[in-house]
């Protein structure tokens, strides 16, 4: 598990999370801002080992809907949702998506590290 795709529409948050991943020794395959970019990205390649997906994305589809689209296309890469809301509705939607987990903002390095390690080991 080396290549990680980061989907985050807020540049500053994307930068911080990207640096965090790099500091932890991972390669940020790309930083994408919208659902369309994600779908296009996976039309060209499928070399990422993990996706860090912000739940709230600008545009027509949010992170959960984007992941659902990926699943229908047969892309089964593990997705860690980064969410500012741990409300019941969001949690239920996340639990319905196979091969996914979540972290609550603000994400701290140690949390992310443990989460990735847990995914790697499971």
């Amino acid at each position: 598990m080396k290549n990680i795709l980061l989907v985050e529409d807020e540049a500053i948050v994307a930068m911080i999370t990207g640096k965090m991943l790099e500091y932890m020794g991972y390669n940020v395959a790309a930083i994408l801002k919208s659902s369309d970019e994600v779908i296009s990205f996976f039309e060209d390649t499928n070399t990422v080992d993990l996706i860090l997906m912000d739940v709230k994305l600008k545009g027509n589809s949010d992170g959960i809907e984007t992941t659902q689209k990926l699943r229908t296309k047969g892309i089964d890469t593990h997705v860690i949702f980064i969410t500012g809301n741990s409300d019941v509705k969001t949690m239920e939607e996340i639990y319905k998506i196979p091969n996914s987990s979540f972290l609550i903002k603000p994400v701290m390095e140690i949390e992310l590290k443990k989460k990735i390690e847990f995914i790697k080991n499971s």
Partner: protein
Amino acid sequence: MLQKIVKYIFTHPLVKNIPDSEKGRVILLYFSSILGFLATVGAVFILMPNDTTGQIIQLSFSSLYLFFPFLAISKYSGKIKIAFFLIVCIHHFILANYFGEAAGYQYIYLPLYICPFILFDTKDVLIITGLLSFNFLCLFTLDFTDYSLINFGKPEEESVMKIATSLPFIINFCALLFAIAFSLINFLSDKSFLEKTQTLEIEFEEVFNNSNDALFITEPYNSRILKCNKRAVELFALQSEQDFIDNFGINFHKLPYTNEIDKLFLDSMEKYNQFDYEFEYISADKREWWGNIAIKRYNTQKKESFNLVRITDISKIKKAENDLKKLLTDKDVLLAEIHHRVKNNMAIISGLVYLQSLKIEDETLRSHFIDTQNRIKSMAIVHEKLYKTQSFEAVNFKEYLKDLVTNLENLFSSADTKIGIEIQCDDISLKMDYAIPCALIVNELISNAIKHAFKNKNNGHIVVDFFIDSNNYVLKVQDNGLGIDKDILKQKTNTLGLSLISNLVSQLNGNIDIVNDNGSLFLISFAK
């Protein structure tokens, strides 16, 4: 003296409770009855000096006079009055037959008896006046024609008879005067009443037709419209009042009249005799509008039931209400967005602190940055909770503690040490002013306990308790670790963590007790 008598009469219990408008009439009735009784007594003793049985019979019946006013002012039905009247007739029949022709004059009393009896009934006054007039004429004729016109037998002693017959003559005359006076009073008062009634009816029609609300009179149970006002025609954009007649209100409802509403209607009418609701109506010109309907059932004097229905156009109020609801929703959305933004900004601040920490190689120094990130996160969770609950004023502290503990367990858990964190907390909503300091305090205490209390130990247990004790909130954080260093206890502000806790407790105007008892115990209390 006269004033005293009048006062006594008017304050007497028999008169006091009579309506003011009837008092004068009833008092006259009393007088006429007493006068009638006394006159009869006098006539009996003069006419029947040697007939004790006749006197007793006559007196017993004459005493009926005294009951007339009571009958008149009481609520007796017409049937009782008729029965009473028949008794009087029978009495006269018996007397006439008992005393023979000599007592035939008793018949002339008949109208006199009826006079006070029916006088109170205003509708019969004119009839009585007529009867008395006839009787008076009879007496008058009798007096001058030697009784021949009514074919009474001649009395033995003419002088006595003349006196005797003059008494009923006088009484009848008085009664006639009374009757005429009453007739006039009744006529005038009836005329005045009629005029007033007519005026009231006209005024009522004016009020009914010029009301700003649509008014209807409907049948009580099927709500068929019987009458409506001009505003109703205008509001429902119909041509004339006739368009409503025999129509039904529910025909103008926008939505179907459901069984639930019907049940509400029936229950309300049964309990309160009225019904109040809001419906959306459609006028003939297809305009949709909101109306407040108020239905009140009433009974007429003829014991007929009707519904008085008022419909007020409340479209403007409804619009204002909807605008207000939208504003409130917008406010909630805005507040939610603000809390979301605050939380996101905190995430960014935390990230920036993290980025800064990446440049630090010294692990101890770097851990201070992580502590700062942790403190930011503890506050961010409060904003998240506020955002989630949509209350924006208070946060469920038990739910908050669960999230905070999960976060701290994620941060500090390791394969080497097993630390269990137990939350014992009542369901308490904590205002924003208290929630943030409390959040930071709990974060500091648990972080400190995890980092320092269980050195060289494989496991540990931390209990967080938050409850209300009388008028105070009490926060209790206890661990079974090494306890606080005595030197640190003496100077509570020696470390940043304890300094923060001390200042946050001060911000809450609370007290803190730190005890070493098989570990450390922090007891913080502050007023609600």
